[in-house]
């Protein structure tokens, strides 16, 4: 969705800006801690010669100096703000505001020495700057930065960082950073020449304990001339990581599958009522979903206009509105068209298809043929990590929502009076009628319920799909397949059907690609229906047999 993309991009920009601000704020800080500062006069002198070899040597020395000023000097060099005076051999930092500070002490310098020049930088020096700032970050005051630096070292496996790592490890107190540093150190040791086998195998064990892609890359870097014992240990660790990664990958696919399954469940569950329970081949079902999505759009527009503060609650407000609106449309359709067609299942298909065309065109006329923007409330955006799984709040809420709708529908059918009457009419219409149940009214209510549920689904689907007049068309085939696959007339079948199709789809995708996976799934369902024409959970009683 455009709006969410935009929001995310805006967020990114904000984050970046924030980062820059903090970076700028931290720059002058070394000035505060000058008391027990280690002596960095030697590297400063080297910088003042402005020879590349000297500059590189100075960077190496600075990065392990432990001086609080080192980070500021390296950063200034990177930005071309590190100045020296060829005459006085003084090294100064030009602040972003244009002032000058002394590189060693951080004290402002009131009067600039004459002939001030920037220390020159070439590609070799840039690489050295990167290495130095990485090493310096290892001892940064901010634990998050130290952690990131440790990970960066682990990925680069730069042997030169080893002394800095050792120094940082000795000082580190944060447990997470410490383990990241240990890992980075182990990563370097694995590939480093001349490390004793025992130490190397210990390193392999350390890295192997971290079951991710980075660890895998590290373990694959064991030199070809390593001893068999080391190689064996590495291979064992690699196999272990690959196994665990494979399991996580399956887990991630299952998660995507459950997420897709919930979408399918939402799309299909209303159809499980109108088609599964009533036997109406409701081709307008998709349009009920579409109407629900447009109700969401209208509700959001109204909130934006009259009370923007309520925006985060817009979906919650849209749910009952969509249910009532599409439910009402459903009742009208049932009373004017469907009720004349009971017992002629295939003709309900034609009539409802006609209705779907009319509804699509009506929406197109009112709202235009293009996509309308439905925004995401703040609680639907973002993501978190669970082990190696990445879980977005949007997906999570849709799964939760699908389950809530399912349970609510089940409860309605099982526990309420109208649910009881619906089941009675389904099982034996004449008997129900003779017991005083108004079967006409129950028919209308049942169709209204199915349509209303479809409308609710539309509220949720407006968050993940384009809200356009064609929205419903993309769900109708899948919905029918889910209901038929699960077993007509059985809500649990619809749940299991939706989940199995969703998960199967996502499991097939890595091997076959999205389109071929979908095709394969369609073929599988077609073959399955040959095998079990009544679906997974065949129900006895009133069958949808045409």
């Amino acid at each position, binding site marked *: 969705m455009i709006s969410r993309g935009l929001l995310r991009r805006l967020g990114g920009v904000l984050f970046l800006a924030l980062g820059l601000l903090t970076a700028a704020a931290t720059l002058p800080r070394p000035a505060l801690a000058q008391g027990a500062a280690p002596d960095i006069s030697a590297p400063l002198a080297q910088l003042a010669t402005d020879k590349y070899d000297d500059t590189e040597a100075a960077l190496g020395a600075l990065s392990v100096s432990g001086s609080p000023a080192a980070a500021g000097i390296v950063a200034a060099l990177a930005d071309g703000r590190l100045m020296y005076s060829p005459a006085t051999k003084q090294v100064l930092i030009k602040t972003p505001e244009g002032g000058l500070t002394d590189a060693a002490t951080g004290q402002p310098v009131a009067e600039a020495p004459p002939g001030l020049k920037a220390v020159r930088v070439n590609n070799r020096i840039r690489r050295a700057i990167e290495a130095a700032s990485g090493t310096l970050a290892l001892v940064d005051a901010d634990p998050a930065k130290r952690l990131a630096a440790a990970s960066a070292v682990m990925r680069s496996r730069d042997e030169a960082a080893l002394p800095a790592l050792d120094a940082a490890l000795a000082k580190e107190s944060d447990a997470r950073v410490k383990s990241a540093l240990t890992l980075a150190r182990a990563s370097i040791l694995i590939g480093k020449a001349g490390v004793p086998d025992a130490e190397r195998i210990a390193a392999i064990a350390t890295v192997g304990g971290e079951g991710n892609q980075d660890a895998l890359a590290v373990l694959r870097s064991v030199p070809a001339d390593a001893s068999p014992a080391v190689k064996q240990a590495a291979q064992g660790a690699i196999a272990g990581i690959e196994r665990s990664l494979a399991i996580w990958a399956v887990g991630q696919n299952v998660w995507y599958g459950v997420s897709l399954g919930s979408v399918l469940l939402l799309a299909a569950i209303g159809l499980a009522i109108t088609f599964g329970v009533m036997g109406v081949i409701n081709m307008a079902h998709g349009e009920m979903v579409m109407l629900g999505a447009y109700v969401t759009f209208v509700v959001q527009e109204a909130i934006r206009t009259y009370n923007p503060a309520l925006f985060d609650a817009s979906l919650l407000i849209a749910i009952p509105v969509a249910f009532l609106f599409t439910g009402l449309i459903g009742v009208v359709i049932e009373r004017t068209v469907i009720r004349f067609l009971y017992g002629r299942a295939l003709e*309900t298909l034609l009539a409802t*298809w006609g209705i779907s*065309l009319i509804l699509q*065109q009506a929406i197109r006329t009112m709202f235009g043929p293009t996509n309308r923007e439905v925004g995401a409330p703040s609680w639907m955006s973002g993501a978190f990590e669970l082990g190696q799984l990445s879980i977005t709040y949007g997906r999570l809420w849709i799964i939760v929502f699908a389950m809530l709708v399912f349970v609510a529908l089940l409860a309605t059918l099982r526990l309420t009076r109208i649910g009881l009457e619906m089941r009675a009419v389904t099982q034996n219409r004449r008997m129900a009628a003779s017991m005083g149940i108004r079967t006409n009214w129950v028919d209308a209510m049942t169709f209204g319920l199915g349509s209303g549920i479809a409308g609710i689904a539309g509220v949720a689907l407006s968050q993940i799909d384009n809200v356009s007049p064609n929205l419903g068309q993309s769900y109708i*085939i899948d919905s*029918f397949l889910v209901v038929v696959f699960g077993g007509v007339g059985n809500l649990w079948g619809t749940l299991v059907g939706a989940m199995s199709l969703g998960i199967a789809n996502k499991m097939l995708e890595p091997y076959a690609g999205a389109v071929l996976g*979908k095709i394969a799934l369609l073929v599988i369902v077609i073959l399955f229906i*040959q095998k079990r024409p009544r679906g997974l959970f065949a129900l006895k009683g009133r069958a949808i047999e045409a």
Partner: protein
Amino acid sequence: MSTLTPQPVLLGRSGLVFLGVVLGAAVLVPLLNLATSPDSALHVPTYVVSLLGKYLTYALLALSVDLIWGYVGILSLGHGAFFALGGYAMGMYLMRQIGPRGVYGDPVLPDFMVFLNWKELPWFWHGFDLFPFAALMVLLAPGILALVFGWFAFRSRVTGVYLSIITQAMTFALLLAFFRNDMGFGGNNGLTDFKDILGFNIQADGTRLVLFVLSALALALGYVLCRFLVRSHFGKVLIAIRDAETRVRFTGYRAENYKLVAFVVSAMLAGIAGALYVPQVGIINPGEFSPANSIEIIVWVAVGGRGTLIGAALGAVLVNYAKTYFTSGLLAPYWLFMLGGLFVAVTLFLPKGIVGTFYEWRDRRASATPADGGLPEPKPAE
């Protein structure tokens, strides 16, 4: 249908009228195109000839659907797939005829393959430079798909709604497949920019007239074939299957084989319709596989009257004429309202369709002596 005296009549009065109209059009339309001056009120411009030719291929397609829906009770929501396959077979022939005249000038590879950087013609494109082979494929591609699909479906007794839904899934799967560039059928854009057919310029007026005449002949022959089939003993078994499949099995007939034969014949007819359609409209793309197209065919048949054959053809022409008429003018935004309303109105008020209702009225009027070799009354298959 056998009435008071057994009638071995193949066509009956309405059948003869129908054939007369179709064949008359085959003569008259080209005549009015060629023999009248463009200013004359009677002149039929070439674009109208092609438009009418398109309607006729739709009529043949509707006929093929009526054969299985009206007489066997199989509501196929995937018949557009057979039409499209026939169309693609013809389109592949037409692509190969372009030869080095394509934009990229490759003597063998169609433009889209050059564009995709393919070096060699895929194996399934071989032979399509020969018209007889392509013509065979027009029949075999839909026929074999129908054979395999039907063999599985009918043997395991998938019927009614379930069958309808899996036929829809079938055409949907094909839609997705043909959209893929890797499939080698031109992906999204399909096959187009045809130059000539059997050496004749496909844009030339003469070619267009011949294609129109061929479509009319195909429709006439298709009608006679369907009519022959449904009036044979075989056809009586089909109708019996539609009304009481179990009884048919207990009478010793293999219902699945009867359905399969009808389904395959129907698919091949649809394929022929597709093959005649493509050169007249000049393009075939995956959109023809879309489930909505297949459902629309059902409406043509329902409007005309299912189980009447003539009605199917009539419905196809009427609905498509209305579509052309309304989608081109001021009323264009309302076309879908009208089409949708038509679906609803026909199912509610005209369940037997135009021709079915006419037959009913005629039979009631002449109930003492049911005339004609009229058809068995179409009964809902449910």
